[in-house]
C-alpha cells in the first residue's frame, strides 16, 4: 500500500492507516461538525491516507442504533440526525429568532435605566411617542412588567424590568447596568464633551421614585 503513495503525501501516510476505532472517531467528528451531509469521497479526502470511511461508517452506524441520534444516509451523503421518535423534544429548536426593533430596544433600555418609569416619561426621554405595540411586545416577552402606580394626577402605571430580562442579558441586577461614564470608557459612546445636565434633572421632580438615576451622575 505504501508503495503506491504519491511522494507529496504527508509523513503520516507513509505509515499505515489509523486503526478502525480511530477512523470511526474521525467520521463521527466530521459528521458532527459539518454544516452539510458528507459523502464517503469527502470523508476519504479529509481522513489520513489509506482510511476506509465506508467501513468506519458501518461501525458508527451500528454504534448509534437505538441511541438518541442516528447516522443517516441523505442522498449519497451521510449526516447525524435526531432519532425520529424524539422529534417532539425539538420543538424548542424551531423558534425563529429576530432582532428587536429599534423602538423596542430603546424603550427597553429606558425602562431598565430609569425604572420605575411611566409611558409619558419614556416618551419624553425618547422624544417620540411610544406605540402600544412596542410596550405590548416587551410585556409579552416578559422583559418588562407593570410596577406600582405613580402617586401623581392620573395615577399612571409604571414599568419595571423583570427577572427574565436580567436572565436574558446576563445581569445580576439592573443596578449593574453600566452608567454613561462606563459606557464611554468601554467605547460605546463617542468621546464627547461631558453632559452639563443629563436627564436626571428632568426626572428628579419625584424624589420618591428617583429610582436608579443616582447611578448615572457622572
Amino acid at each position, binding site marked *: 500500500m505504501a508503495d503506491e503513495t504519491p511522494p507529496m503525501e504527508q509523513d503520516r501516510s507513509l505509515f499505515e492507516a489509523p486503526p478502525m476505532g480511530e477512523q470511526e472517531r474521525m467520521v463521527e467528528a466530521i459528521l458532527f461538525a459539518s*454544516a452539510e451531509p458528507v459523502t464517503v469521497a469527502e470523508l476519504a479526502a479529509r481522513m489520513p491516507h489509506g482510511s476506509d470511511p465506508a467501513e468506519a461508517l458501518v461501525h458508527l452506524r451500528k454504534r448509534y442504533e437505538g441511541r438518541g441520534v442516528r447516522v443517516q444516509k441523505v442522498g449519497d451523503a451521510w449526516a447525524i440526525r435526531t432519532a425520529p421518535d424524539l422529534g417532539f423534544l425539538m420543538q424548542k429548536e424551531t423558534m*425563529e429568532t429576530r432582532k428587536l426593533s429599534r423602538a423596542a430596544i430603546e424603550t427597553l433600555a429606558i425602562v431598565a435605566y430609569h425604572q420605575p418609569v411611566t409611558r409619558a416619561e419614556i416618551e419624553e426621554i425618547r422624544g417620540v411617542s411610544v406605540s402600544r405595540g412596542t410596550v405590548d411586545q416587551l410585556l409579552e416577552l416578559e422583559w418588562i412588567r407593570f410596577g406600582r402606580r405613580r402617586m401623581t394626577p392620573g395615577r399612571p402605571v409604571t414599568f419595571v424590568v423583570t427577572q427574565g430580562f436580567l436572565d436574558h442579558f446576563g445581569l445580576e441586577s439592573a443596578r449593574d447596568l453600566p452608567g*454613561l461614564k462606563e*459606557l464611554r470608557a468601554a467605547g460605546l459612546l463617542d468621546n*464627547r464633551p461631558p453632559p452639563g445636565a443629563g436627564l436626571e434633572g428632568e426626572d428628579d421632580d419625584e424624589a420618591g421614585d428617583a429610582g436608579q438615576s443616582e447611578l448615572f451622575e457622572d
Partner: protein
Amino acid sequence: MTDDDFQQDALSVSERLAAEALIVDVDGYEGPLDLLLTLARTQKVDLRKVSVLGLAEQYLAFVDKARHLRLELAADYLVMAAWLAFLKSRLLLPPDPSEDGPSGEELAAHLAFQLERLQAMRDVAARLMGRDQLGRDFFVRGIPEDVARTRRVSYTATLMDLMQAYARIRTRDEFRPFVMDRDAVMTLEQALDRMRGLIGYAGDWTELASYIPEGWEIDPARRRSATAATFAATLQLAKEGQIDMRQGETFAPIQIRKRPHGR
C-alpha cells in the same frame, strides 16, 4: 594598526546601534512597569529574588541613556524614574524613625510583588491562549436541528444592543442645544424668521398680538415668551426700517405695519 582602528570603529558603531535599539524600543514597552519587568528579567534571577535596588539603578541608567540620546520619554517614564530615585535613597539611607510613611523595604517589596504579578498574568494568558479553542481545535454542531413543526418567533437582543440604544438616546440629548430643552421658550431668531416671512402682508396697521404663532397663545409661559420674542423682533425690524410701530397710550395694544417704501 589599521586593522585595529577599523575594529575599534566597528565596535563603537555596533555599540551605538545597540544603545539606540534599546532606546527606540521604548515605544515597544507598555509603560514603565513593562519596561521594569523586562529589565528585571535581565538579572536572570527568580523574580521573587529580584534586587529592587539593582533594578532601580538599571532603570535610572536606562532613562539617563535616553536623555543622553535626546530621545523624548513619555511623562510616566519620568515619573517612575523620580519615584525609583526616591525609593533608592530610602533603601540606601538608614531609616529615619521620625519619618512617616512606609519604609523603603515595604515599597521595594510591593514593587517586586507587582512585577511578579504582572509576569504571572502574562504566563497564564499565554497558557490560556495555548488551550484548545472552540472553532479552531474543537467544534460545535454543524447542523443544528430545526424540525419546522411549531414555529414560534422569539425576539432577541444582546446587552450590547441595549447599551448602544441607551447611549444613542443619551448622546442625542447631550447634543440638543440647551435652549431647545425648554419647549416653552421662543427665541428672538425664531420670531425674527417668522416676522420677516409675515411682514410683507402687513400693509395696514395690525396688532402685534396677532403675530403670536398658533399654539403659543394659550399656555401662559409660552405666550409670555412668544410675546417677548415677537416684540423684540419687531423692534429689530423697525430699526432696520422695514416697519412702523405705534402705541395709542401706555399699555394700549402695539400695532405695526409694513413701511411703504421699506426694503
